[in-house]
């Protein structure tokens, strides 16, 4: 498959089309929204499903196979937000607090970007190591910590670390992802076969519905983009490619497959818009949500969904054989 065919296959996939429909709904000022309870249910389903599948796959992997990718993910978690913080210093006029807030978002991860990416890779019959969702859980937290720490250099007061960390650790993202991995590890393949119909076959459909709602939310954010200036827009589309390339490289160095390395690249390229905003809002009230949410949700998320995912696969295919 050529790069163009891959890009086209991604753009015409059901989740991406639903996302575009959601954005269109905001353009025509439709009042379409998923009811809040449905949105919450779908997000719980996705988080738990990803966790369980990762855990089941982990139960079939040897510790030696997982150790290097895990170490690589931890290094990515520390390096990416630091690079984002300093890159923003060159590219924008934002103060340290807002740069730290953005670093927390870009250091952390987006479950939906990852899920759409993995479904896309699997639709191309590419093998993706099952334990990558464990890497997703690992990468979710350090970015937020590093981002907040960098931002705190611009503050004259102390950051309320305990409250923000409790929010991150007990928030549903980590609780369901890590809990799901533990459940999957415990139940193994035989236990999973009993719930596979619900968490396996229905999964792409639920993701499609979820992306419809995210399209609506992102569409509303796109209007705020001008607040951040052109430097922020450039950052929001170039940084995912840089961070994602680090991720793909790390995957290959750690001995992962082409699909697995692309998936790690997608995780590294993605920016958080659920866990990180919640933590940043509590710890850094001075930072502007108009800046960090517009960048992560309004620009980077649609960019990754349409361009970033196939780009990571293309980069991973290029790197194959080099290592």
């Amino acid at each position, binding site marked *: 498959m050529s790069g163009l065919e891959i890009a086209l296959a991604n753009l015409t996939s059901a989740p991406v089309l639903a996302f575009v429909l959601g954005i269109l709904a905001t353009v025509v000022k439709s009042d379409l929204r998923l009811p*809040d309870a449905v949105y919450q249910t779908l997000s719980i389903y996705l988080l738990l499903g990803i966790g369980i599948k990762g855990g089941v796959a982990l139960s079939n992997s040897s510790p030696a196979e997982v150790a290097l990718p895990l170490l690589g993910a931890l290094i990515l978690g520390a390096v990416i937000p630091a690079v984002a913080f300093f890159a923003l210093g060159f590219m924008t006029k934002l103060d340290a607090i807002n740069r730290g807030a953005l670093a927390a978002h870009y250091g952390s991860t987006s479950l939906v970007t990852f899920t759409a990416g993995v479904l896309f890779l699997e639709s191309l019959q590419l093998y993706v190591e099952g334990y990558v969702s464990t890497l997703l859980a690992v990468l979710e937290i350090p970015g937020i910590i590093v981002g907040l720490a960098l931002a705190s250099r611009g503050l004259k007061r102390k950051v309320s670390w305990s409250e923000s960390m409790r929010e991150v650790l007990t928030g549903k993202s980590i609780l369901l992802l890590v809990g799901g991995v533990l459940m999957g590890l415990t139940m193994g393949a035989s236990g999973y076969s009993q719930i596979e119909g619900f968490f396996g076959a229905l999964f792409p459909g639920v993701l499609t519905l979820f992306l419809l709602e*995210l399209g609506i939310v992102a569409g509303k954010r796109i209007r705020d983009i001008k607040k951040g200036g052109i430097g922020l827009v450039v950052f929001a589309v170039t940084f995912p490619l840089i961070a994602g390339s680090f991720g793909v490289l790390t995957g290959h160095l750690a001995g992962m497959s082409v699909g697995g390395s692309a998936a790690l690249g997608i995780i590294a390229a993605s920016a958080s818009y659920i866990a990180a*905003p919640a933590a940043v*809002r509590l710890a850094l*009230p001075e930072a*502007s*949500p108009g800046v960090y*949410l517009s960048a992560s*949700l309004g620009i980077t998320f649609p960019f990754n969904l349409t361009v970033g995912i196939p780009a990571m696969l293309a980069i991973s295919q290029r790197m194959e054989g080099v290592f």
Partner: protein
Amino acid sequence: MIMKQRKLVTVVIEAGLARRLEGDLRAAGAKGFTSTLAHGAGPRDQRASEVDGGNVRVESVVSNEVLEVILEKLEKDYFPFYAISCWVSQVEVVRDERY
């Protein structure tokens, strides 16, 4: 029946801050509160919780002294930063020892 005067303080705040606010109400001396989900729009629209949760409306019936503490706390730690709306009304209660 004898009714006593109390103040009802109503705060509408972005959902991500609700837990902190409820803790601060307790710390200020409020003996209880009621929280319900809410949605609406304000003049500034400065929120981070659009993706997750919307707003929460937190209500508490308190004495004048506790109200002062709550309003000072809001003025210092909430009003400058968050999507928040707050108003106070005069109410009458029976069983005044509960409030």
